[in-house]
C-alpha cells in the first residue's frame, strides 16, 4: 500500500462501486479520459500568393505591475483590463511570431522567448513542428526590434542557433542603439539595464553575422520594413504584399489592443520614447483604419489578425473570422 494517495483511494472507491453493478442493463462506464491538451496554436492565411502562418509562442497572465501604464492611474488600467474580461488584478499578454513563405524564401518574423521552463511561453518551435515547419528550413529570421520576446528565440537553452540555416536580420537603428556602450551606461532603470544585457547575451558570437536592414526597403521578397520608431528607437513594422493583397505586421506599434489600441495615448512601460510611440501609433492606425488594412499584431490574441476601426478617441480591433479552410 506504499505511496497510495488520496486520489487513488477515491478513484478506487468509484471503480469499486461501478464494479458492483456489472449486470445493469446499460453498463456504467466512464467517459473517455479528459484530453487536457490544447490544439497546437497555428493558423494559416494567404496574402496574394504568399502563404503565412501565425504561430503562437504562448501567452502570459500576470499581476499587473505598478507603472504598467505609465501615464494613467493603476486603477484606470486595471479597470480597462477587467472590462476586457482579464482576471481581476491581472493582465494577459500573448506573443505571436509569423512565418511567411514567399515562394522563394521561408521567413520568420520575430522569434518569441525561446524555451522557457515552467511558463506558458516559448512554444514557438513546438507549434512550428505541429504546423509542419522545420526550423532548419527557415531562410531568414527578421527581428522587428531587440526586446527579449521578439529576439530571444534565435538561440536554444544550450546557446545553439534554433534556425541554423537562417540569415538573421535586425533593424540597423535598433542594433546601433542597443549595442552602444554609451547608451547602456545611461540606461535609466533596471528594466532597460536588463534589456541591454539581454541583447548582448543573445547576440554573443553573432555580432558579425547579423545583417542590418534599413527602413523603406525589402527585408525579403514582398516584405518591406517600415519605420515605426518610438517603442524602441529602431522598432520596425512590415508591409507584406503580393499582387493586390497586403497586410501590415505592426510588431509592437501597440502592445495589447485591449488597453493600448482602445487608449492609444496610454504609455506602456516598454515604450522607450512614449511620446513618439503615441505619434507612430496614431499615424499607423489612422491609415490602417482609413484603408481597411488587415493588421497582424504580435500582442493581439491568437491568431492575432484583424481590422482596426476608429472608436471614440481610440480604436477597436475587429478580429478576422477564423477560416476553416486555407
Amino acid at each position: 500500500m506504499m505511496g497510495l494517495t488520496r486520489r487513488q483511494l477515491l478513484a478506487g472507491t468509484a471503480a469499486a462501486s461501478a464494479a458492483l453493478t456489472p449486470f445493469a442493463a446499460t453498463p456504467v462506464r466512464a467517459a473517455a479520459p479528459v484530453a487536457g491538451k490544447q490544439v497546437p496554436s497555428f493558423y494559416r492565411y494567404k496574402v496574394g500568393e504568399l502563404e503565412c502562418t501565425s504561430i503562437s509562442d504562448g501567452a502570459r497572465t500576470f499581476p499587473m505591475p505598478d507603472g504598467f501604464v505609465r501615464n494613467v492611474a493603476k486603477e484606470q488600467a486595471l479597470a480597462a483590463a477587467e472590462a476586457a474580461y482579464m482576471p481581476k488584478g491581472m493582465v494577459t499578454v500573448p506573443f505571436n511570431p509569423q512565418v511567411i513563405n514567399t515562394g522563394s524564401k521561408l521567413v520568420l518574423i520575430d522569434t518569441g522567448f525561446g524555451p522557457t521552463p515552467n511558463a506558458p511561453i516559448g512554444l514557438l518551435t513546438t507549434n512550428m513542428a505541429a504546423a509542419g515547419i522545420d526550423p532548419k528550413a527557415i531562410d531568414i529570421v527578421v527581428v522587428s526590434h531587440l526586446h527579449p520576446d521578439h529576439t530571444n528565440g534565435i538561440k536554444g537553452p544550450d546557446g545553439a542557433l534554433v534556425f541554423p540555416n537562417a540569415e538573421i536580420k535586425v533593424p540597423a537603428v535598433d542594433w546601433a542603439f542597443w549595442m552602444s556602450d554609451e547608451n547602456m551606461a545611461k540606461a535609466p532603470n533596471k528594466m532597460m539595464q536588463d534589456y541591454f544585457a539581454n541583447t548582448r547575451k543573445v547576440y554573443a558570437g553573432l555580432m558579425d553575422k547579423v545583417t542590418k536592414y534599413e527602413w523603406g526597403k525589402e527585408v525579403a521578397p514582398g516584405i518591406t520594413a517600415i519605420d515605426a520608431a518610438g517603442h524602441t528607437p529602431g522598432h520596425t513594422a512590415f508591409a507584406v504584399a503580393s499582387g493586390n493583397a497586403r497586410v501590415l505586421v505592426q510588431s509592437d506599434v501597440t502592445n495589447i489592443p485591449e488597453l493600448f489600441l482602445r487608449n492609444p495615448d496610454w504609455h506602456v512601460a516598454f515604450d522607450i520614447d512614449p511620446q513618439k510611440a503615441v505619434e507612430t501609433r496614431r499615424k499607423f492606425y489612422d491609415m490602417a483604419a482609413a484603408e481597411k488594412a488587415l493588421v497582424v499584431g504580435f500582442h493581439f490574441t491568437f491568431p492575432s489578425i484583424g481590422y482596426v476601426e476608429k472608436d471614440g478617441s481610440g480604436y477597436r480591433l475587429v478580429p478576422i473570422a477564423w477560416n476553416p479552410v486555407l
Partner: protein
Amino acid sequence: MTEVTRRALLTGAAAAATLPLATGLPAEAAAPPAGAQAPGWYRYKVGSFEVTVVTDGMGRFKVPDNFVGNVSKEELGKALTAAYLPADSMATPYNPIVVNTGSKLVLIDTGTGEAAYAQSKGATGQLMTNLAAAGIDAKAIDAVIISHYHGDHVNGLLKADNSLAFPNAEILVPAAEHKFWMDDGEMSRAPAGRMEGLFKNNRRVFAGEVMKRLRTYEEGKEVVPGITAVGTHGHSAGHNSHIVASGSSKLYVQADVTHVPFLFVRNPGWHAMYDQDPAMAEATRRKVYDMLVAEKMLVQGFHYPFPSHAYVEKSGSGYREIPVPWNPTI
C-alpha cells in the same frame, strides 16, 4: 523621425513587383507551401468539464433576396460590408462542441454531415476529420444532444454511407421539436420550398438505426448530468439551448438563438430566413441576450466564428460579442 507615412504603408505592393533582393546566393525555392489550414478544434474548461469546440467548417454563398425578411437588401449589404464581407456574400461557420463531463462524452449538434465534405470540396462537413485531429474517437461518444432539426445540426448523425456516425451514442432530441417534425399533419401543411425540404430531410435522418437510439428530452431538465435543456423556441418549433454547468462555472450553449453574430447579435430585431416563427425567435433572442449580459454568462454560438466562445455586451440597440481570448495552453 517617425516615418509612418501613407507612402510607407502603400509601398509594399509596389516593392513586391521589383526583383528579389540580390543576395549573391543562387535563386532557390523556399520550403513548399503547406496548403492546409490548422486542425479546427480548440479546448477550454467549464469547471471540471472539458469542452472541445470542433468546427464543421464554413459555408460561403451568395445572399438570397429574402435572407433577412424585414430588412432591405441595401441595409443587409451595409452590415455585410461592415463585417468585411462582400455586400452580397455570406460566410456561415458551423461549430459543434464535445463536452467531457467526466462521466459522459457528449456531442452537442453534428454539423452538415460527412457527405457535405465531398459536395463542398472540404469547406463544410469537417466534423469527423476535426474530431479525429482532436483525438476524439467517434465510437467513444456516449450521447449526441440535438438542439433542433435543421440540416446543419442533424445531418452529421449519419456518415456519407448513411451508417451511424456515432455508433455507441444515445441520440437525445428535444421532445417538442421531434413531435413537430414527425407530425404528418404539420408536414402536410408545410409550405413548399424550404419547410417542405426540412420535413423530407428529417424523415430521412430520423429513421432506422437513428430511431433505435433516440430518446426525447424535456425542457428545464438535465439531459445528461451537468447539461440542462432550455426551451428557446422561435428559430424552430421546439428549438433548445443548453446550459453546461460544473462547480460554479456555467456556459450557455445557444445553438441558433442568433445566427451569425455580425448580423443578428448586432441587430436582434432582424429576422433571418431560417427563423420559423420570426417574432417568437426575436422575443427569445432578446430575452436570452439580456440574460447573458446581466449574468455575464459566456456563450457558445454554433454560428459564431470558430472557436465561437464569447462574452456578450449591450451595444446601441443590439448587442456585441467579445470573443474569449485564445488560450494557447489549457
